[in-house]
């Protein structure tokens, strides 16, 4: 049925797409996600500065205070934790470390993994073999075990956690990138670039990376939620984030004993993780479409609904 694809009108009206912002507005879900994410980033940046003191002030009379009441002030609207600290303030403050660890981990794993993957996919067999076997070594260790050992040796701190978590996530990016590169490098337009005389760097950056990038972005957003939870299990074991510093993952872990009596202790931070992960996914989905010239029209046409 090759005929049908060609039967479409060959020249859509606008040669140049509209701005990114108007394309974002076109996809309402992605727009909401972007707003939510900006809000969370603002929390992360200014939260500790604005609400830092409030979040650590204990009030034993307000222990496990139920949510949705304004009797003790707005900060207790989402309830109080087991030491009577306001949940709302703690959630905002916890955004800082959570986002720092998750973003730091995902970003460095993406950078290293994609970089090595591009090299492994593009270069000869020997280089590829060395890199891939290294990845196998990392993958064959239980990731929690490496984390425990490394953090025990180096001592628990946020940079060390980023390091440890990033190392365990690298193989995922590496393998995906390599697999895609192996396929893309055989495509005709890469051959065309070679014939034109393009050097390796140009071929990788201009011709291969843009094709591989959408897949990587999608994995990265999925990974974001995974890292938040992995961080919480490390914190739960006592080798992750150390109180009084808090993260959403740690809050979930701390709220676990109270699930029967005070569900809100674990629920709100859990909800934050879900919202962040969901927003990232929706936004990355939009980005995949917006960055692909062949799909972009979906965000351009006036009448169509969200796709």
């Amino acid at each position: 049925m090759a005929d049908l694809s060609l039967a479409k009108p060959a020249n859509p009206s606008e040669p140049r797409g509209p701005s990114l912002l108007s394309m974002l507005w076109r996809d309402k879900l992605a727009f909401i996600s972007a707003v939510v994410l900006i809000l969370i980033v603002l929390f992360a940046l200014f939260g500790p500065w604005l609400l830092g003191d409030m979040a650590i002030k204990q009030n034993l009379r307000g222990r496990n205070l139920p949510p949705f009441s304004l009797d003790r002030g707005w900060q207790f609207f989402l309830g109080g934790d087991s030491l009577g600290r306001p949940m709302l303030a703690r959630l905002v403050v916890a955004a800082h470390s959570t986002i720092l660890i998750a973003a730091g981990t995902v970003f460095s794993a993406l950078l290293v993994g994609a970089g090595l993957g591009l090299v492994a996919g593009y270069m000869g067999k020997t280089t590829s073999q060395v890199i891939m076997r290294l990845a196998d070594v990392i993958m064959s260790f239980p990731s929690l075990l490496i984390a425990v050992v490394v953090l025990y040796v180096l001592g628990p701190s946020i940079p060390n956690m980023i390091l440890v978590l990033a190392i365990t996530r690298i193989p995922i990016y590496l393998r995906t990138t390599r697999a895609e590169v192996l396929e893309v490098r055989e495509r005709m337009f890469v051959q065309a670039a070679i014939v034109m005389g393009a050097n390796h760097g140009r071929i990788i950056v201009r011709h291969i990376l843009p094709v591989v990038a959408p897949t990587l972005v999608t994995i990265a957003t999925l990974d974001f939620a995974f890292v938040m939870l992995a961080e919480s299990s490390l914190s739960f074991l006592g080798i992750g984030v150390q109180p009084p510093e808090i993260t959403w993952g740690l809050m979930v872990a701390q709220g676990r004993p109270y699930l029967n009596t005070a569900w809100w202790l674990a629920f709100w931070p859990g909800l934050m993780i879900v919202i962040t992960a969901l927003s990232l996914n929706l936004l990355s989905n939009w980005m995949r479409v917006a960055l692909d010239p062949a799909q972009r029209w979906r965000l351009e046409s006036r009448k169509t609904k969200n796709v």
Partner: protein
Amino acid sequence: MSEPLLTVKNLSVDFHTARGTVHAVRNVSWSVSRGETLAILGESGSGKSVSANAVMNLLDTPPAEIVSGEILYEGEDLLRVSYEKHRALNGKKIAMIFQDPLGHLNPVYTVGWQIMEMMTAHGRPSDLARTRALELIARVGLPDPEAAMRKYPHQFSGGQRQRLMIAMALMLKPDILIADEPTTALDVTIQAEVLALLKELQAETGMALVLITHDLGVVAEIADRVVVMNKGEIVETGTARDVYHAPQHAYTQKLIAAAPGKGEIRQLDGAAPLLLEAKNLCKSYGKFTALRDVSLTLARGQSLAVVGESGSGKSTLARTILRLEQADSGQALWKGRDLIAMNARDLLECRREIQMVFQDPTQSLNPRMSVYQLIAEGWDIHKLMPDKSKRRARVLELLEQVGLSPEHADRYPHQFSGGQRQRIAIARALALEPELIICDEAVSALDVSIQAQVIALLDGLRQRLGISFLFIAHDLGVVRDFADTVIVMKAGEIVERGPTAEIFEAPQHDYTQRLLAANLDPDPDVQAARRAALTHG
């Protein structure tokens, strides 16, 4: 003429796409009788497959919607019978074969099992299916049917797979066989064999054959009647002879005029300085020899065609000259300097002078780059035209040169048709002001009328700019129109070379003769005469 077996009446089908409704076919009517061959001729996007797919209930609804019409078979309207009833008819009474037999054979089952399934799926006992399958595999001309039954699809060549598909289609002795571009993916000599086979089988069984094709040669060879489609409408119907010799509609006239291989053969004019000389190039992959002692010469401003069937090594030849593959031995002298042994820096300089246009422009243009970026990329690579303001003007000039318009510069490849994309690829090659352009099957993916335009464009460039061409093709008609000299390759070796006129009018080697004989002429009379000569001679 006898009562028609299958009749399509006033069929209209719409496709509801995200970009709006496309009228795929409008008011299409045709019919086919027992023992008759009907060809549906059209270019891509003409809707030629849609009505056949409607007959087979292969249209997905949605996005497709059958707006009006009826398809009558044995007094019943196939558009209104139940799904179960339709399924019982498909394969049993009406069978279909497709362009790409590999895509339609399941790679994890033996072909024998798949052929037998045709019968067992319709509730016949398997021992009966087995006898019939053996009989048919022998009938379609495959050696050792017993062994063939136990093999997997990848163990057959393209032509053999198409024979297997035909055997499969004929298992239940259908009344009607619909063939959608059955020979498009095959080499000319194989194409001729498969068409001859279809014809024989039709004579034996008396089935009706509906052949969907874009190739006038195929129509001339096999069709009794032809339906010409353009943009979803039937523009002309008639016997194959009448339509070819006295086309009524402007579109048909254009289509017939565009068929390659009818113009004057060019004569070599004088001696020009030598540009490229390949000496004894050899290349093998493991035990398979792709090139064996291939030598050629190409002078400035001339075009050299390399013809051969798939697997003859003609693409490998281009790739070794371009250093996309490393030759095992031999030389490729470009203005006296050996490309094969050249270091990277010198090679970069030569890469500017030698450009390539690939077969499939959909794949050879990076989908994420705009036309401007695609054309300007070469200047970045070779650090030419540092003045960015002049680049835009030059890109627009190039677009105009290849027959596109300036506003196309900011669009992306997917917004163009196949022919337009190939023009972009040509503009990209021209941007570096090359002295040689290597065209690897550059027009074979295009429709006939567009093919003619692209060939005319290339020929104009050759005359105006003095660019040489190394033209790799399997379509002899195109070669005849475009080349000064021709090289014929078979199994990695050059079997014959010479000026175009000599090769076409007095071929010496027996492979060249076979190749020319298998090449289908668009004129039904010529084909009939050839067939007669073949049977009597």
